[in-house]
């Protein structure tokens, strides 16, 4: 990797500038909040965010734990990656599950992606924040992901119910973030706000960050459902009458719960090939996420309720 100061004419490249700005955000939140936490979703954005945090506080450890809100329906590869990643980087990880919902048997098949996401992700997240008393939570969301994200602040204020009001956001100027909250209120902080999908991949490549193998193409058992390829990752997958899993060479542009993640047919087996495919692609990355399509403006509805 290129040393920071070797850049000619004392001007940072766009990635180094984004990096410097993100490190600034991470340090501001760590300095101004009593109990921050970093949401860790195991995906590529989380990988970049953790690396930026390591850079922000080196040679010290991260001054906050990671939190994985576990729906129990992630890909097996994701769990394996998570446990190895946390051990190798000596990170403190809290795993939180909505135990009551699990006991009630909530699953993506019977409850529909909308309700399932609300219970297993949004409710679980809010519960975790409350139980541990976190007053700031880092998320890896980017403004280029979805239209309602484009207006999201870097410090996104949430009321005591974890809810977001798009009409009453605090103005955010320069790099002067307003971290004042009352007891029970919190912020979500988005250090990757100004990064794009390409920036994240390019940085992952530059920094040689590890990624979950699911991002790379490999033969995997899938079924095609309403035009979307769903991977049959374990025996809990409910096949519809007539559905027979077949092996196809596929990969994932975004990772989530396996029954809700659409795979794409691809032959990209290296990071540069992924980037190449993305650059030449004709569809946005969230297309593979089933939860966005439920209704128009669905992300905004979820965010108002407390979703990341």
């Amino acid at each position, binding site marked *: *990797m*290129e*040393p*920071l*100061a070797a850049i000619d004419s*004392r*001007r*940072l*490249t*766009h*990635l180094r500038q*984004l*990096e*410097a*700005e993100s*490190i*600034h955000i991470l*340090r*501001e939140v760590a*300095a101004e909040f009593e109990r921050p936490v970093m949401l860790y979703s195991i995906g590529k954005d989380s990988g970049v965010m953790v690396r930026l945090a390591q*850079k922000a*506080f*080196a*040679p*010290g450890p991260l001054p906050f734990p990671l939190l994985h809100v576990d729906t129990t329906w992630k890909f097996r590869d994701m769990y394996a990656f998570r446990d190895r990643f946390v051990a190798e980087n000596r990170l403190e990880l809290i795993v939180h599950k909505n135990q009551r919902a699990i006991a009630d048997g909530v699953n993506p098949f019977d409850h529909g992606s909308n309700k399932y996401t609300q219970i297993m992700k949004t409710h679980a997240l809010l519960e975790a924040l409350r139980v541990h008393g976190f007053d700031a939570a880092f998320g890896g969301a980017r*403004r*280029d992901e979805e*239209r*309602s994200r*484009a*207006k999201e602040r870097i410090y996104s204020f949430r009321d005591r119910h974890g809810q977001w009001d*798009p*009409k009453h*956001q*605090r*103005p*955010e*100027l*320069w*790099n*002067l973030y*307003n971290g*004042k909250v009352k007891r029970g209120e919190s912020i979500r902080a988005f250090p990757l*706000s*100004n990064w*794009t999908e*390409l*920036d994240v991949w*390019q940085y992952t490549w530059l920094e040689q960050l590890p990624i979950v193998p699911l991002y790379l193409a490999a033969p995997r058992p899938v079924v095609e459902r309403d035009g979307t390829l769903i991977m049959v990752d374990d025996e809990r997958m409910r096949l519809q009458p007539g559905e027979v899993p077949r092996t196809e060479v596929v990969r994932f542009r975004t990772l989530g719960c396996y029954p809700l993640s659409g795979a794409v047919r691809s032959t990209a087996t290296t990071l*540069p090939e992924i980037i*190449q495919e993305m*650059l*030449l*692609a004709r*569809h*946005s990355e969230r*297309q593979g996420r089933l939860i966005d399509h439920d209704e128009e*403006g669905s992300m*905004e*509805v979820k965010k108002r309720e407390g979703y990341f």
Partner: protein
Amino acid sequence: MSTPDGDERTQIERDVLGYLHAHEHKELLRLVVVGSVDDGKSTLIGRLLHDTGRIYEDQLSAVKRASAKGATRGAGSEAEVDFSLFTDGLRAEREQGITIDVAYRYFTTARRKFIIADTPGHVQYTRNMATGASTANVAVILIDARQGVVAQTRRHAYIASLLGIPHLVACVNKMDLVAWDEAVFARIAGELSAIAGEMGIPDVTCLPISALRGDQVATRGAHAPWYDGPTLLEHLETVPIDADLNLTALRFPVQYVIRPDLDYRGFAGQLASGVVTVGDEIVALPSGRRTKVTAIDTFEGPIATAFAPMSVTLRLTDEIDVSRGDMLVADVPPTIGTRFDAHLVWMSERALDPARSYVLKHTTRSVRAEIERIAGVVDPETLRLAPAETLSLNDIGQVAIRSHQPLFFDAYRTNRATGAFILIDSLTNDTVAAGMIRGGGDEGGARDVKAQVSASERRARLGQAGAAIAIGGPGALERAYLVERVLFDAGVIAAVVPREAAAVVAAAGLVAISVEAIDGATLDGVAIDGSDDDEATARALLAALDRAGRLGEREPFD
């Protein structure tokens, strides 16, 4: 159509590593795009995103569906894509058919990565434009060719100058609706240059465009053969932004102290300005203790030199007491004080209460502060200061502030990072104002006189506003000096200067005369009808200056 085309596509296909390597070296440019209602701002941004391949097919087809539904225009025809829909954000706004907040958009070309702050242009949204403008290198202002320069245009230019944006681009849009009339464009461009001169914006560029049809946005259209300047995208890719960075004086606000064990104490922060090298002597504020930098640490290891806006960790020779909110400085010291003058953009529905104190956040330092005096509210259209008892939402005020603890600051004009602050209402915790420090107050003799002079003050003193005259053709230099003499004798302060100095000199309130590779003479880019008689040309320029309102209130020259 919506993905990289031609050469770029070929390169990605053949040599993605080479492509990635090239893209590692891109610069980041932030721009704010503003326009009055219906100037076509959303269409322009949608067009930029679309033409640079940032719109994917699923998004395009969603927008095509919505265009057909006629979400913003009644019955939209299916064939015509409503580009404005690409940038339409939140549900509440979609229902109203307008955007009401700042949204950020991203696109990239082979040379630069761009971040667009998309801000609405309604009068009541000064707040939003100030927000988008605070981090911008470039302001793109849209002007409807049919309307020309309107009051809103002046407001937008003023906010751009207030927020210290060094580069202004005026897009004269909807040129297709005025039959691509060159004279219309020239008139608007001339008026805009005059405004920029008055407001002290050093770099102005005007472009004739049609956002709807795409002419001169990402590609050159066929409708303006008389226009030989760059397209908007070409301009954004090449406008020099290196000099915008303040590398002259070290300002390192301490964000966080890293202390993993007893042997290591590092001061983490992002350089607000300047350069620091291992071995440099620095001063820690507020203690005033002098010490040396022993190491500049990063995750990758120690480095010899760091410059703004890098985020690094500094170690110091002496065990001095430094914590968050302190500042490490070198070179010309900042002003240290509790009193200063500032511009405030009021952003809250609760008006300013001079009897209360607010939380003031400046760099990494938060202190209590009061507004001691409201000098007045600035009318962004006339630049006049009107007396005021308070500031309300979207008011721009000139105030004197007193903080309970000292701040270490520079004038905003010389240093955006150490001249900016926000005010927070400690009852509601809302951000209620954005502040730009004009200079130190009258305590301890620390008044920063330089930073106080505004374009309007200069105008009052000089009795004229700045302008740039360019002269070309054979014997141009000789004629330039003749023009200088004629203007000087008429009481105008004018000077022949090198071409690259013209904008700066004009921004300072003088009439800059420079030799350029043109035929004849121009005033702020607009051709002046001359004749073979050099002195007649000089008099024509004088008359043009007067008509353009640069010469203030004085006796007619004739």
